[in-house]
Structure formats: C-alpha cells, structure tokens
C-alpha cells in the first residue's frame, strides 16, 4: 500500500515510538496510585513528557500540559470549560467537526452565540473578519491552525494579536500542524492549544493534549479518580489533576514522548521541508492533468502537505475506491468532517479526494499517485 492519508493519521511510526510503547507495556504501573517502582515509572514518564511538550509548544508551565485522548477531547475540555451562558465565540468555516460539534452543543445547551469567519473559493479567510465579528460579549476566538481539507494555514500569530488586543481567549486546534509546523504559544498569543499525538506528531492513537498558557480557569469536563486527595468530594483544583480524571494512557504517552524526541532529533524544519516537497511535486504534476480541479491556496507553500482534488465530475468516493483497488493508494474521500469548508468550496455533492503526505513517503509514492490520477482522468475522459 502507498499510504497517502497522513492527515487522518500517520500510519508509519518511527521505530523509537514502537520500541517505547513495547517497553512501556511491561514496565508501567498506574501513575499517582502508589509509590512503588511501577507507579513511579509512569509518574516520571508523565512528568518528563509534560516538560518536553511544554518546551516543544512554548507553553510556560509544564503542569498546564493536560493529557487527553486526542484533539477532540482537548477541544471539548477547552470549550466547555471556558464558555459560559451568554458568551459569544468567533470561529471559522474551516473548522473540523471536533470544533464545530462542541460549539453547536454549547449553542444549544448554554445559549453561546457563534459567528463564523467565511472563506473564499480557495478556502482563504480575510483576517479583518476576525476583528469585525467581535462583540461586547465575545469570550473566545476558536480556530484551526490549518484546514484538514485544503491544507491552508491560518496566520495564528496575526489572529493571536487580535485576540490579545480585544482581551479574548484564543483557542487553537493544532490537529493538522502539531509536529509539522513550529508552534510557540507565547510568541503566537495562543491561550489554549489542542493537539493530537497520532498525526504529524507520529505518536500512537489515543494520545493528545491541551496546553494552557496563563492563569485560565478551565472547569473540568470529566471528574473522577486521580489517586490524590481521595477524601475530597470535588475534583482537585490544581493543574494538571483538575482536568485529568481516570487512568491516563501511559503506554501511548510513552510513544508520544519518543515521538517528540524523534521530531526534535530529525528537526521539524527538515520534516516540514520533506513533506512540503512531496506535496508540491504531487500538486504540480496532478494539477496539470486535464480535468483535475484542486482546492486550496497554492500561491504559497506555507501550508500543510495536503492536496485535495476532484477529477471531472466523478464522485470522489469512486475515484478514491479506484485509487485503492486498482493502484493500492490510500487516500480519503468524502466530507472529511469539514462540512462548512466543503460548502465554501462548493464540493458538498461531489466531496473531494484528499492526498496527504507524511515524513515516510517518498518521491516514488508521489509519482505513482500522479500516474494513477492521470490514468483515472483518462478513463473518465
């Protein structure tokens, strides 16, 4: 299989990640549940990994690195933990359902008002809209760092400046960029960063986190066992315990920790250069095929390594199926959990075929994909 669905998850992981998870499976006790070596092994792992992640993302306090199962959980914690009845939030049509559905739920259940920054036919936003949509009761700007459909990057620093100027929380969904694009929360003015471990971080599924920059009161999304303060009837107020109830995914976090080491040793700039070169090689060849339409802003390569396209009027699912069955190429068709982005691109009915490249892909993978696109386009005629 030629795996070009890295925006969904990176299937190939560095060998150090595999080794770390394997070792963890027979060495980790339950963190904060005792003082024996097994439990302490996990406590030490969590402590060190929080430190690593805080450094990696420029989060000032490592105790405000909260482990979650994925971005969706982190976003649910961030949004339900800070938005109150009567609040207003500014978000964008680029968002994934991991942002949209929690916001829609808050709209229904807490009467939180929402405003959406629109996008043009290339999926680009007008940054003035973020400021224009702010109201007196606006509490937060919530947006993705990059569209999972088009790969377009948002200028987080620019939005962060607007949020800071207007005294707003700035909550960022870094699902597509964590590990692929350098992020510094302080420098970019990010209040809360939500990331997943299994995409460009190249860690295991079931890992991720919420990082909190500054003195932000986030109410717990879930409460329960923490191993500490057992006679307290409420969730302890101290971070990270406040937002982490139940046994953590220590085995996965061991893999995530190794993945951060791998990215640091390889160099995020080197990883990004490789992935961007692959996406560019694919885009330049595939977009020249008659009948191929691409989606996104390709006037810049300050973007994620994603190329979404359609071939003529063919249903994206049928093209994706042909890529898989006839060429052994794994891509993602359909709506990509990004309904508003598809609406903005006018691809609701057809969907789109998304090719997304990862660190372990090669030029040969790209060339095979281009040949397949060319042949399928020829079949459609």
């Amino acid at each position, binding site marked *: 299989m030629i795996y070009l669905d890295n925006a969904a998850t990176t299937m190939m992981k560095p060998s150090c990640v595999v080794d770390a998870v394997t070792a963890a499976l027979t060495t980790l006790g339950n963190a904060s549940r005792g003082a024996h070596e097994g439990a302490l092994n996990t406590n030490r792992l969590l402590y060190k990994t929080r430190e690593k992640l805080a450094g990696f993302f420029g989060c000032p306090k490592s105790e405000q690195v909260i482990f979650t199962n994925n971005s969706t959980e982190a976003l649910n914690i961030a949004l339900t933990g800070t938005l109150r009845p009567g609040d207003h939030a500014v978000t964008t049509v680029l968002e994934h359902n991991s942002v949209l559905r929690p916001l829609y739920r808050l709209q229904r259940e807490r009467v939180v008002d929402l405003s959406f920054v629109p996008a043009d036919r290339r999926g680009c936003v007008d940054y003035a809209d973020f400021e224009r949509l702010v109201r007196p009761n606006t509490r937060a700007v919530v947006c993705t760092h990059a569209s999972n459909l088009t790969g377009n990057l948002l200028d987080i620093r620019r939005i962060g400046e607007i949020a800071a100027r207007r005294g707003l929380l700035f909550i960022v969904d870094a699902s597509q960029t964590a590990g692929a694009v350098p992020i510094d929360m302080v420098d970019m003015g990010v209040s809360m960063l939500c990331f997943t471990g299994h995409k460009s971080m190249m860690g295991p599924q079931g890992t991720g986190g919420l990082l909190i920059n500054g003195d932000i009161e986030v109410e717990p999304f879930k409460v329960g066992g923490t191993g500490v303060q057992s006679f307290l009837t409420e969730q302890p107020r101290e971070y990270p315990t406040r937002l982490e109830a139940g046994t953590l995914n220590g085995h996965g976090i061991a893999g995530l920790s190794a993945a951060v080491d791998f990215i640091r040793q390889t160099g995020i700039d080197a990883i990004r250069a490789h992935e961007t070169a692959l996406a560019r090689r694919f885009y330049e060849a595939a977009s020249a095929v008659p009948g191929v339409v691409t989606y996104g802003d390709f006037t810049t390569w300050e973007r994620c390594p994603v190329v979404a396209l359609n071939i003529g*009027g*063919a*249903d*994206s*699912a*049928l*093209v*994706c*199926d*042909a890529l898989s069955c006839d060429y052994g190429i794994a891509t993602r*068709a*359909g*709506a990509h959990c990004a309904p508003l982005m598809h609406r903005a691109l006018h691809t609701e*009915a*057809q*969907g789109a075929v998304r090719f997304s490249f990862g660190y372990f892909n090669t030029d040969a993978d790209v060339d095979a994909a281009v040949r397949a696109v060319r042949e*399928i386009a*020829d*079949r*459609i*005629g």
Partner: protein
Amino acid sequence: MVRYYILFENYEQGLRLHDLLDGAGVTNRIAPAPAAARGKLCCGMSLLIEADAIDAARGVIAREGAAHHSIVPMEDQLRPKRDRYC
C-alpha cells in the same frame, strides 16, 4: 453499468452486514460511500454489490433484519470510455 451501494449510519452496521453477506456467500466489497448518494446521514463506508447479487443481498438483509440506511443504484463513472466502444 449500474452497481448498488448499501449505505449505513455507522461502520458497525456496515461491518455487521459485511459479515452476514460473506457468511451467506453473497459477493460484496467494502467501498467508500459515494458522496452524491450518502447525504448528511450516512457514514463513509458502503458495501458495493454488483447487479447480479443485489437480490440475494436484499434477501439477507430481510432475513437477518440487518440495520442499514439505504440501497442506492449508481452508474460506474470511471469506465465510460470502455463502455463507449462496447
């Protein structure tokens, strides 16, 4: 050439029917759900059934009470050139 796509609300429904059809010897294949057919309520997978097997598939669904969203006929869009010269 018309083919049939069985659509589902989630992957669990789809994989259950896939097992049932395999068990009954009805040829079927997991395929991405066509974007044009699935609308807002279906999941990303479908079961692709060729025309000569659709009645058998319907029989299994009825007999087992298998949950599914709908069955949608669809022209194969990727082979028109071949059809053109048939």
